[in-house]
């Protein structure tokens, strides 16, 4: 599904991502963990096309995508959410999800201005599909509420729905549990598993270890831009190197 081969990213003298390689298999949930500043978000931005890698190859469904623009990557079936939720101001939850359907629809400037039958039909289909996604994430009652005025957990769900609207093959989740309490985190972890069951592969960056260990099939550990471990959650918890990073060394 997704394969990183010796990916590097340098910002001036800082080697933010250093020779990272791993792959994400179809239908699995993979997590990237690591202390602050380990390069997790940079890695995400490289995969999603927000930043070009300095070196290395990123294959998505067998095709190289490094250096592509985010909207091109999105059109190939990769969706993402953001650490600090980015919903659209002045739009209802439903409209936010409808924006997510952008790659699934075609009507352009002219047909939009003329409100052609084609555009109207497509609009109806988009609305229907977006409503179904809100139902799937159990937030359909907030469809007509301005998205940015919703509670934090609900905003995360709207963002998830928007990402799913792309009909993605791969979903990137940047700290989906950040800022959520334990009930909301449990809710999100249930939703992520639900999404995986729909056949969507998931790659997530997360600090909440209970969430990571509960839902991941595999975990990658980053530290100062380098991959130091890649294994199942059980083995990662036993890995002395990982324990050293997280708990510090014995004096």
């Amino acid at each position, binding site marked *: 599904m997704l394969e990183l081969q010796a990916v590097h990213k340098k910002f001036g003298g800082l080697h933010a991502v250093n020779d990272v390689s791993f792959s994400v298999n179809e239908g699995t949930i993979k997590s990237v963990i690591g202390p602050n500043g380990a390069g997790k978000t940079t890695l995400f931005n490289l995969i999603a096309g927000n930043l070009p890698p300095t070196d290395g190859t990123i294959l998505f469904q067998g095709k190289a995508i490094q250096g592509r623009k985010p909207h091109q990557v999105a059109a190939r079936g990769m969706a993402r959410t953001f650490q600090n939720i980015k919903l*659209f101001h*002045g739009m209802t939850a439903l409209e936010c999800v409808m924006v997510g359907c*952008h790659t699934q629809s075609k009507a*352009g400037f002219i*047909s*939009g201005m003329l409100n052609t039958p084609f555009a109207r039909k497509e*609009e109806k289909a988009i609305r229907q599909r977006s409503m179904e996604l809100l139902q799937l994430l159990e937030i359909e009652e907030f469809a007509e509420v301005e998205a940015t005025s919703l509670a934090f957990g609900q905003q995360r769900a709207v963002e998830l729905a928007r990402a799913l609207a792309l009909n993605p093959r791969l979903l990137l989740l940047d700290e989906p549990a950040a800022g959520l309490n334990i009930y909301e985190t449990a809710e999100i972890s249930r939703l992520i598993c639900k999404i995986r069951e729909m056949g969507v592969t998931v790659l997530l960056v997360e600090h909440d270890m209970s969430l990571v260990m509960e839902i991941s099939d595999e975990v990658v550990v980053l530290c100062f831009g380098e991959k130091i471990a890649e294994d199942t959650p059980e083995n990662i918890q036993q890995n002395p190197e990982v324990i050293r990073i997280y708990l510090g060394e014995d004096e």
Partner: protein
Amino acid sequence: MKVSKTNKILCLCALVILTQVTTTLTGTQYYLTQLTMAAYYGLVVIGLGVLMGYAGQISIGHAGFFAIGGYISAAMTTHNLVQLQDTPIISFCSQMGLLMERQDIYGDQLLTFAPWAACVTALLLAALIAFFLGIPVLKLKGHYLAMATLGFGTIIYRLVLATPLFGEADGISEVPAFTLLPAIGSLPPIMVSGDFGLRVINYYLAWGVLIIGMILLLNLIDSRVGRALRSLHSSEEAAEASGVHTSGCKVYVFVISAVYAALAGVLLTHYNAGIGPSEASVMKSVRYVALVAVGGMTNLWGTLIVGISLTFLSLRGVFGSYDDAVFAAILIGVMLFSPAGILSLRGCLLPSKQEIAPAKEENL
């Protein structure tokens, strides 16, 4: 509370007809002249409103696009081609029916481009310039974009002031009427012209163009592309991640708003039978921006209403020599007390349903 788009349009149409009937009955038809002009300026303002309010891209150069429309159309329909009429290009244009022959006020032969050919050229040119200006300039954000578009407006202003073809400081006068439909039988011709006898027709023509322009933009806002524009206004990163080609969308909406401004320029120039350099001035661009801001950035109806009423008052000379100062004062007042535009003041008087609804849900 919520009135549908169609009903609002119908109300506007009714109001337009009512105004015309009232002025006829009360013998105050002279108001129609300024209302016609205000409608054309309204076209510039709503086009800019979509660019600024919905897509979030400021342009302090829209008078430049208005001037491109007006000046190209004026120059092409007044510049005498008689001496060139034997050249292959001009005779080819003549065969294609692009030219118009008439006599000037001294009775000499005058051969110029036909207004429709000039109009098409002007609109295409404005669209092209907007396209090629937009690609680099729309990469800028906020103040930087404002400065760059200001630069563009200044270039156009100085160009028309310095070019003999555009009449330098005098501008261009004696622009012919723009015949849209020739007289058929007993029906009067439909032409854009300041002729007193055609005042009512021109009033309806201008408002017809404005209302159609308004409908197209309202459709656009509610469409897939409109949603994409609104999303990139709020977060370009999230819009990109949703598959929106943000730089392309920005350029296209810039082109559309430039074409709106240019069309207004073309029609108003034919209506006034001329155009002067003040139409290209930076102060005009600033005024358009102010009208959008006063009307409410994300409120196309507010933009339309404020744009038309203030422009009408200004054209009637209500503000006298203090015109620009009054506009600036209104802008300061609105920014201080009602940054979302004048229509948002409604909310202070009667809380709308929309504001109550989210409050309730938070209590759940």
